[in-house]
């Protein structure tokens, strides 16, 4: 009789996901322990799915008590080691995109008979506030019962926690529900999920696990004050999220691709989303629709106030939209931009709301499923379209690009959105695409402030992260971090200026260092230099984003800065890789952790990404049989001895869809 939890000789006896969140900065450690109970060497693989926004900071492999630590290296340096390992038929770890929100880290090693192996992956991320809450997302996917399975999350928020929830998509009955506990009081919150072996079974007599799905922790903090500043070891972070302000009215132009590539489900889902969005529009808002295929058609000649009558007409217009023909995104966008500019020039929208909405919340939402394959008409050169759009907008309002489906030039959309102070989102072609569209609109539908500037007294700070924002949206949060020139400051002052719907506001935050110390006294909850790491994370993230639209010398400098920080703070970013080398049989076995991007953008990034997201076929190799477990997969090799390696049975030979 086979012991429970032993599959093909490998027993996974423990998996723990430990999350420590301090002031939105999450430090997660995934530890898995296994033993090879077979008579021969077996391959054990370890998969973790982590958020795309996270950076891996450490990976260690411990075999029979000997730990092999990970080293973060510049991608090119790591690449050589990786290629060497692969050319020798050795296993190598990979990170590739997995679904909408996640990346998958995979590594496997050979473990001698009777040996124990332990994998530990650490990653960090700054939790961002959306629609009034922070969300931490964990993927749980075991196909094997695990004796000690545990998810533990400790949250410490100096502002106090206002709500905390944890949900598992796979919890289907009360029995499993009892394995989940969640509590919060004051500044501390705790979530624990510890299903017993019996609770993990998919049925009372089954040996396979029902733990398969998403585990999501959501919380928010008290907002008695609009801002909160924290300072530790000379680094500060400033969170700003005022409440109770009126919503700035918007002028929205929806620029919609109705070319043949949108035919069928995409146009139907777009219609559904637009109809819902129309329901949510406020009477102070102004709107119009621009449809482009080979030609450009507009709903109205100019922006129209969202009165009940015009909303009804808009509904009818949306319901009659049909897809077909070629794609002329250039003229569609330029028509929309021109309409917004004209509305401002001729005062067709109220003066105060005009200046606000045009600068901030005028949404030129290009629901652009660039044809598959593109069938452009009009201007089709992406660089030229970008230039035209940039020159037309001239920084006056943001452009949001929503790309539908997988086969579009997402980098073009993203690049264009970023250089026009907006952002791009991919809309996944699933049944909930209409909700994705609608959800995005809701995120940007309620601007409370425009032209937000966060100011600190001159000569007191260094290395500030982004401190100007075109808008602050209800339910979101602005985060600015930096370094203090004088560590021994007694007090610290910050001003946040912005334009509200009807007046200008200046929020002042004064910090007394002694009070601060009291607030951050819960040392056991604070992982040492979390503000410094949060600052580094945010700085790298912003440098990488800026880099996407930089050229020449500027791009070189941004890359150098981001690389320098990634190496200094041990972050696996798109510029670095983590290498774990395990000496084995006088040879080296190399594992590598790496971070993929959205897809090809330039010559510097593509080659390394392509190689990293490929498994190298090395026949004759024995295929692995992979099982999966919580954020991890386990498999065994059918091979005979310790030096045998294996490769996955299916070998994708392209950069993943993202």
């Amino acid at each position, binding site marked *: 009789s086979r012991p429970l939890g032993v599959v093909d000789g490998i027993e996974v006896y423990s998996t723990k996901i430990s999350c420590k969140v301090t002031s939105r900065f999450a430090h997660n450690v995934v530890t898995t322990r296994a033993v090879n109970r077979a008579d021969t060497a077996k391959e054990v693989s370890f998969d973790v799915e982590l958020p795309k926004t996270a950076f891996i900071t450490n990976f260690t492999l411990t075999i029979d008590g000997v730990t092999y630590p990970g080293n973060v290296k510049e991608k090119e340096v790591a690449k050589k080691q990786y290629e060497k390992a692969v050319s020798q038929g050795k296993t190598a770890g990979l990170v590739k995109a997995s679904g909408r929100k996640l990346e998958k880290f995979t590594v496997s090693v050979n473990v001698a008979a009777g040996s124990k192996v332990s994998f530990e992956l650490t990653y960090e991320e700054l939790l961002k506030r959306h629609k009034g809450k922070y969300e931490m997302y964990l993927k749980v996917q075991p196909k094997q019962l695990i004796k000690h399975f545990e998810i533990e999350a400790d949250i410490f928020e100096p502002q106090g926690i206002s709500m905390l929830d944890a949900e598992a998509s796979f919890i289907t009955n009360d029995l499993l529900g009892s394995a989940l506990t969640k509590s919060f009081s004051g500044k501390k919150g705790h979530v624990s999920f510890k299903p017993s072996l019996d609770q993990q079974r998919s049925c009372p007599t089954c040996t396979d696990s029902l733990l398969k799905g998403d585990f999501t922790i959501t919380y928010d903090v008290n907002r*008695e*004050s*609009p801002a909160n500043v924290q300072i530790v070891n000379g680094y500060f972070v400033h969170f700003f999220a*005022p*409440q*109770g*302000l*009126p919503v700035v009215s918007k002028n929205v132009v929806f620029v919609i691709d109705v070319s043949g590539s949108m035919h069928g489900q995409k146009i139907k889902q777009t219609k559904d989303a637009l109809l819902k969005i129309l329901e949510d529009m406020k009477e102070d808002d102004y709107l119009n629709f621009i449809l482009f295929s080979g030609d450009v058609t507009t709903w109205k000649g100019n922006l129209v106030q969202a009165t009940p009558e015009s909303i009804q007409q808009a509904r009818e217009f949306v319901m009659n939209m049909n897809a077909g023909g070629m794609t002329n995104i250039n003229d569609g966008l330029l028509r929309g931009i021109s309409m917004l500019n004209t509305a401002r020039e001729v005062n067709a929208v109220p003066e105060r709301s005009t200046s606000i909405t045009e600068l901030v919340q005028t949404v030129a939402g290009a629901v652009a499923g660039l044809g598959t394959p593109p069938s452009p008409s009009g201007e089709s050169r992406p660089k030229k379209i970008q230039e035209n759009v940039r020159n037309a907008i001239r920084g006056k309002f943001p452009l949001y690009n929503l790309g539908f489906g997988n086969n579009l030039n997402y980098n073009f959309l993203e690049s264009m959105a970023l250089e026009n102070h907006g952002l791009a989102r991919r809309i996944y072609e699933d049944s909930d695409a209409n909700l994705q569209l609608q959800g995005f609109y809701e995120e940007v539908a309620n601007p409370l402030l425009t032209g937000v500037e966060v100011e600190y007294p001159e000569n007191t700070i260094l290395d500030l992260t982004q401190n100007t924002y075109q808008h602050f949206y209800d339910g979101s949060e602005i985060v600015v971090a930096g370094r203090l020139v004088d560590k021994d400051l007694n007090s610290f002052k910050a001003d946040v200026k912005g334009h*509200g*719907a*009807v*007046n*200008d*506001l*200046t*929020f*002042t*935050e*004064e910090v007394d260092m002694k009070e601060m110390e009291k607030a951050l006294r819960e040392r056991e909850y604070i992982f040492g230099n979390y503000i410094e790491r949060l600052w580094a994370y945010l700085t790298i993230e912003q440098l990488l984003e800026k880099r996407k639209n930089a050229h020449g010398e500027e791009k070189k400098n941004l890359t150098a800065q981001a690389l320098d920080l990634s190496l200094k703070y041990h972050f696996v970013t798109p510029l670095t890789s983590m290498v774990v080398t395990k000496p084995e049989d006088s040879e080296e076995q190399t594992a590598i952790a790496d971070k993929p991007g959205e897809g090809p953008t330039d010559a510097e990034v593509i080659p390394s990404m392509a190689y990293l997201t490929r498994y190298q076929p090395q026949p004759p190799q024995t295929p692995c049989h992979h099982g999966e477990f919580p954020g991890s997969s386990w498999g065994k090799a059918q091979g005979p001895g310790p030096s045998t390696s294996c490769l996955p049975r299916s070998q994708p030979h392209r950069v993943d869809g993202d």
Partner: protein
Amino acid sequence: PHFLIQIPEKGDAICFNIDGDPGTVLRLIQDPVTGLTVNGQVIGDKSPDSKTRKTYFGKLGIANAQMDFRIEVRPDKITLWNGAAQSTFSWLDTVTVAQDGLSVRINRKKNMVVSFGDGVTFVVVLHQVWKKHPIHQDFLGFYVVDSHRMSAQTHGLLGQFFHPFEFKVSDVHPGSDPTKPDATMVVKNHRLTVTRGSQKDYRKDVSSGTKVACWFVHNNGQGLIDGVPSDYIVPDLF
């Protein structure tokens, strides 16, 4: 609530109390020309059985009809309305709200300064007491710092004193409290017996305040104020 009327040209001050029932709203300032109105709602102690029946302002409503602007100030929050647009702030905010002809500055846990253009400035002071105090609760103080742009038609419990008025104090003599002499005050064609006392100005120091000596007019300011206190009761804050 206590009322303190400082008359700088005389270097003196007059004070009186208005003992309205909790919930009563009193008209403090009304200027039909500028459209400015300030009303205050009275609150009492937490326990209605407390021996001393003290009342305070628990809510203030400042409105400018011409600007279609209103502020409701409470010890727990401050709400601004520009037409239908509503903004809510907490006393934990330090924030400046500025628009044409208006400036509102909230100083965290201390006070709020409201200015209508150049010439009308009010200060609302937050008085916080211990949260678990068995009797007292948080209340507000209201100060007129500048009223020179308000019209001569301004009225209300405070507004009527924005215009120069004559009063004379004579016959200072010992009163029932040896430390507080009584005197005779002639004001608005009334002859009143007043008592020398003091009130506090909490604008600079919200915990201790600054003592201001004044002549106290008894009986809810009767004789000093135009009409009777009930004339100043209005149905709503706005």
